[in-house]
């Protein structure tokens, strides 16, 4: 087995990791980058506790080999808050009591985040589908869906008032990436 160098971005910061190619993205996020938000629960793509957003789409980070993350843009739950301010999804999860033990929460948030990226006005059915790959065993799904609905309404209101909530295009994203030095692990 030969180690490889994998370059990608995590929460808009470029990183380089020298690693065995067949480790999972989840392992690298947690053990190398010390981002402990994504969790390992089932380890086979059934529970969604490890969901992160990869190139704009929700994925199970336990089912992505780190080698497959080459060149990808990864957003984890740690990347939702900006400048010390929680993302509206996080605010509404708190307000709606959508957390209990919290183990599913980061995956739920990232599935919801991926949904709102491509569909700012989801129906209840679309929300259900978006989190259908995420298991919650304590709070229940009702509060979680209400939190996502409230966030969508909140984000839409803000985007009609100001411009700062508009979706980042690939170009914007890269412009913002340029300001960070690559972190090597």
């Amino acid at each position, binding site marked *: 087995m030969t180690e490889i160098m994998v370059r990608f971005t995590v929460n808009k910061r470029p990183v380089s990791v020298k690693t065995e190619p067949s480790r999972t993205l989840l392992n690298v996020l947690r053990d190398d980058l010390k981002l402990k938000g994504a969790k390992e629960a089932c380890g086979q793509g059934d529970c969604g506790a490890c969901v992160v957003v990869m190139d704009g*789409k929700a994925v199970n980070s336990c089912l992505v080999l780190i080698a497959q993350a080459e060149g990808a843009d990864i957003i984890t739950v740690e990347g939702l808050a900006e400048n010390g301010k929680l993302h509206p999804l996080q605010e509404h999860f708190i307000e709606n009591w959508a957390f209990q033990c919290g183990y599913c929460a980061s995956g739920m948030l990232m599935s919801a985040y991926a949904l709102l990226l491509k569909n700012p006005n989801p129906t209840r059915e679309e929300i259900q589908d978006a989190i259908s*790959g995420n298991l919650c065993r304590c709070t229940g799904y009702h509060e979680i869906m209400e939190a996502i609905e409230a966030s969508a309404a909140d984000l839409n209101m803000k985007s009609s008032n100001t411009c700062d909530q508009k979706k980042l295009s690939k170009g914007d994203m890269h412009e913002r990436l340029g300001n960070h030095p690559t972190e090597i692990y």
Partner: protein
Amino acid sequence: MGKPDYFAPQTVDEALETLAKQSSGAKIIAGGTDLIPRMRSGMMNPALLVDLCRLPLNHIEIKSGWLHIGARVTHSEILESELLAVHYPALVEAARAIAGPPIRNRGTIGGNIINASPAADLAPPLLVYDAIVLLVKADAERVVPLAELFTGPGRTILSSDEILTEIRVPLPPPDTASNFVKLGKRKAMAIAVASAATRLTLDGDGIIFQARVALGSVAPKPMRSIGAESLLQGKAPGMEIFTEAARVASLESSPITDLRASAEYRKKMVAVLVRRSLEATWGQLGMENQ
């Protein structure tokens, strides 16, 4: 999990050369949604992973009367394709029935087929659309009807130096409708207890000119019910003939008892699913004719 080497070739030729050199120690990976859990559980231990992620096999296009789908097209991409929604609704419904978004965003049509699970959701619709698959190796390629690709649970005729690169499906004739139904323990994230896809093509007099009935999870491999199909062909569509065809499909199925359901239950459900699917297919034809 073992520690395989990893290679992501830039071209199909490069991938084929690598496979030809490596013989049996190499394993092709695409979405990885089936392979990675198997590697992690120790069921598979390849020496080298050949990743198809950089190959240009993500097309969905119609060329001279045939739909061409690249092997790397994901279930999400099937769901989002307007072309497929218009011509191949049963395939789109089957993609929607797969797991949840994180799996659908990674898992591919090629992987769903080549894993040869009897429960592969995309197999029954592809069978009713008479899909063929393109298998390529360094010095040759062959085109094989999908039904002939499967040899048993998890087994296909694909050799270790060969890649499934494309699925091809003829454009459905006019007056054609199709449907897919799946019975699972719950709506999302469930492997099928049983599934059925049907297609009906009517002639100018409203008689069934061509019928297809395919079943998932009720035999060692995804199967067509030839008996049900020949019973339907040449008849006027109607509930009575659908019920009879569904009974024949049930007789032709050969399910096993496993953790998801008993063989007896599955056999009974085949009759229910086939009848419902034929009814839904017929309903679409009725709407088109009005």
